[in-house]
């Protein structure tokens, strides 16, 4: 049986200890409570030292564990409360700027190029980046440009010699792809093109274009309209409307020109859309059967559509840049906005 502590004493000791733990309201006090009830000279320790029977030992050890748990728990509470109290004094002006991490920027032409690439990847098109120095054969002849088409002129096109020139549109890459494989073909080609425009605020003789081509069985004019609307919406927002006008390009028949509802003013009228609510953007059409014949595709079996659009022009509309100049000036004050 218990020797120095009776059962009643154990109960009292526990009650007293727990009351002391609950009453302790600082780290120092809880430490005093620990010494008083669990220290080397505490009643419990002395009793434990004197214990002889297993039963008493177990009871006292259980009490010790309970007291330790209670004291540790209270100590943690108190330390946490103390920390919280200290932290109320540790206040920083959180509106101060964070440490500078220098980030660069991607050019708006690249940002727009990627939107176009991703839109067409989603439609299952392959992305092509093709050569820029071309031949008259690929830039004009294979694309069914009539012999007297103004684009063949030295006034409009940069020639290196009578055979070699800087491509005037990305379409030669369509010819390369069609010569290289059988339909079905779904491709979009992106890159630099060259026209002999004198540089000014709104013109530069070099610009970027994206140009797509789909060749398959039963491709319809309606498919072209739907595809162009998809791309316009990817570029300018899902609420854009698209309309079409008749046009003429040598490599398409019929040819159409898309207009997109002005993304700057949402058709209320602004400088960008010349107060018409519509923006002329790119050209398109059903592939001229002569082009198919030129590359050895049977126009009775396959039909297709093609479309093209300036990337800077699309970027202008996305960001509201009224001039071409900033695209080639590369002023960091401008570039860092993007």
């Amino acid at each position, binding site marked *: 049986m218990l020797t120095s502590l009776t059962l009643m004493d154990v109960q009292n000791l526990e009650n007293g200890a727990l009351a002391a733990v609950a009453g302790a309201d600082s780290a120092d006090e809880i430490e005093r409570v620990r010494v008083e009830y669990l220290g080397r000279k505490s009643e419990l320790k002395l009793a434990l030292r004197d214990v002889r029977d297993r039963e008493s030992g177990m009871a006292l050890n259980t009490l010790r564990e309970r007291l330790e748990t209670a004291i540790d728990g209270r100590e943690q509470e108190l330390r946490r409360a103390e920390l919280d109290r200290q932290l109320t004094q540790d206040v920083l002006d959180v509106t101060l700027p964070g440490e500078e991490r220098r980030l660069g920027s991607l*050019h708006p032409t690249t940002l727009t190029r990627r939107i176009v690439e991703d839109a067409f990847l989603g439609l299952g098109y392959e992305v092509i980046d093709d050569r820029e*120095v071309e031949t008259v054969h690929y830039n004009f002849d294979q694309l069914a440009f009539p012999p007297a088409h103004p684009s063949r002129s030295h006034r409009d096109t940069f020639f*290196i010699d009578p055979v070699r020139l800087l491509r005037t549109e990305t379409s030669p890459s369509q010819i390369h792809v069609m010569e290289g494989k059988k339909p079905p073909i779904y491709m979009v080609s992106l890159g630099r093109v060259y026209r002999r425009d*004198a540089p000014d605020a709104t013109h530069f003789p070099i610009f970027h274009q994206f140009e797509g081509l789909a060749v398959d069985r039963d491709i319809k004019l309606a498919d072209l309209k739907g595809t162009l609307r998809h791309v316009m919406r990817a570029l300018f927002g899902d609420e854009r409307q698209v309309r079409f*006008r008749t046009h003429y390009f040598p490599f398409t028949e019929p040819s159409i020109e898309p207009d997109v509802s002005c993304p700057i003013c949402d058709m209320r009228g602004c400088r960008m859309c010349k107060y018409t609510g519509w923006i002329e953007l790119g050209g398109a059409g*059903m592939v001229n059967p002569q082009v198919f014949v030129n590359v050895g595709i049977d126009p009775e079996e396959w039909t297709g559509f093609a479309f093209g659009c300036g990337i800077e022009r699309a970027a202008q509309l996305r960001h509201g840049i009224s001039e071409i100049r900033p695209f080639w000036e590369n002023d960091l004050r401008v570039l860092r906005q993007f």
Partner: protein
Amino acid sequence: MRVPLSWLGDYVDLDIPLDDLAARLDTSTAVVAGIEHHGVSDDDGNLGLFRVGRVLEAKKHPNADRLQLCVVDVGESEPYQIVCGAWNFGTGATVAVALPGATLPGGLVLERRKLRGEESAGMILSEQELELGQDHTGIIVLDDGEPGTPLGDVLPLQDVVLDLEITGNRPDLLSVYGVAREVAALFRLDLASPPGRDPAPVGNELVDVTIEDFDGCPRYIGRLLRDVRIGPSPLWLRARLDAAGMRPISNVVDATNYVMLGLGNPLHAFDQTTLAGGKIVVRRARPGEKLRTLDGVERDLDPSDLMIADAERSIALAGIMGGEDTEISDQTTEVLLEAANFEPTGLWRTSERMRLRTEGSNRWEKGVDPYLAEQAAAWATELIVSLTGARFVGHTDAKGVLPERPVVRFRPEQASAFLGLEVAAEEQEDILTRLGNERRDGEYVVPTWRARDLVREVDLIEEVARFHLADVPFTLPVRREMYGRLDRAQRVRRRVEDTLASLGFSEVYTPSLVEQDRDERALRLQEPITVELALLRTELLPSLVETARRNAEVGNAPVALFEVARAYLPRGDAELPDERVRVAGVAEGGFLHVKGVVQALLRSLHADASWSRAQHPLLHPGKAAETEAGVVGELHPALLAGVWGAFELDLEELAGAARDPVPYEDVITYPAIHQDIAVSVGEDVEVGALVDAARSAAGPLLREARVFDVYRGEQVGPGKKSAAIHLTFQSPERTLTDEEAAELRGRIVTALAEDFGAELRA
């Protein structure tokens, strides 16, 4: 093509709201680039202030020698006193008057005011003030008219001009009548017969025309007119030419221009008396032949140029421009009128070679209907006879075989399928018929004015399409067997762009055309538009340096730029260049800074590179390194003030070196052993060589060897340096023992000692 609506209204009843007309043309026919209100505005009764007036009295202004003081009856109870600066009229003249309060076409509002002490109430008008023509030398003197008559009743005071952008396939629309025909088809209107009634000739004189080259000139109608009196054209004609954008010259020339604008067939008039032998020969130019054209330029002719000649010499560049010697002058009394047809391609080549483009060549090069010449000749003859009092005394029509009208198979169901829109067969037939095609069984006979454009079924489908463009639905192709993805090079390009942007670089786009290039074989444009854009660059760095300089100059620090673009490396003379996609960058900071950027770039691609010393004209001679993909270095100090780093790397090489997918290595299961060594070596030993030697000595168990410090000082001694190298040994298969690591380290130390005389310091 500028189309005055007053003129268009001669051929088709324009009872259509202007906006509808423009919108319909814009959708189905040609871009409407502008709608221009020409002449006097009719807002707020403005037109009522323009009247016919009679000059009751005209005398010199008492205080000004150059002014006339006029009293003018404008149909009101009291006449108006108007001061006028012109002297080409006098008492009794019928004139055009604008009253006080009137707004002139230029925007000027007239007020009563005093001029040199005399009141002037309104203005006696000249052509220029009414935008009727360029003549401002005198006021308009009208034929008789009742004072007070609205001026709009006797003069074309206002007009609306549609500015249409006619596409190359529709030369038939480069004429007012052609546009009228299109409008009639679009709106189901009646169309007047083509303008011009041929007057009966009053003689049967010989017009000597010989066509030597029917390929270039399938047809030549020549007409002889005598007793021509050259003078200015009447106001109505000048006003129409002016509204259509052509400058009036003289009655004969104006008549030919008017017919060209009206029907689309360019004409020419020669002074018959200047033609040697009085004859016309259509032939190619002779070797060495020259011609001074109307613009005063002496032109060297090529034997491929089609010429109009007389018995001795060339007198006109066929279809493009007449010659100075034979042009109509004030003294001309005999006119040879040319209404011909010229083949487009050859004419275009001549116009292109001579850099000479005219209203005429613009039409010919697109292909003019050869059947049009007859009507054009008739109308021009009618006009010249009526305007100049000439006698039409001779006619000839020389022609080769003119082309038949094309017959084109057409299946309405095919058209519906092609459009993705069901259009009833009757509706399709109606459209095609309204456009002048004649149905014959399952085929259509195309009108002569569309014979070049409508030759295949798809061309007729286009005609249906443009009438129903807005009705075609929006669908996507029912795709088969195609999948889209970026290829490896494209993924690497995006990765490179993103990494450099994350490292603080801003992307730029610089012109691929430059003023000069290091490579003297760089491709040169035949006709650059400016000297700055003349050569295809063989490297990107010079453009980036220039861009960096401009940014530094305006204080855009810190400057860090990169570009991904092509370099055009010349190959053989006739060959296309090798186009290499490169990434180049320029940034403030020294060699190690920029090399750190390139290392980060390589790490982002999981690509390895070994570097060796390089020489590059744009880079510091002692601080430039190269690897297979390109160069990195400090910019040559002569190029830019301050210390700058630069690199230019081939993207395809980078893509080749990139590890994708990255092979997994177990670096967790068996711990790595880290050791540092420091060795002293001669100053000329490159640390890269130490690392390479360490690698080959230790083999694959040396996972990493990185130089982390280079020290020079007394403890090392003169001419020497100490390199501290961090070594990491690790095996993916087992735990390395300390003994193994010590052995590997020993091998490295031995190798460094043997290869470089390195002494171990720690």
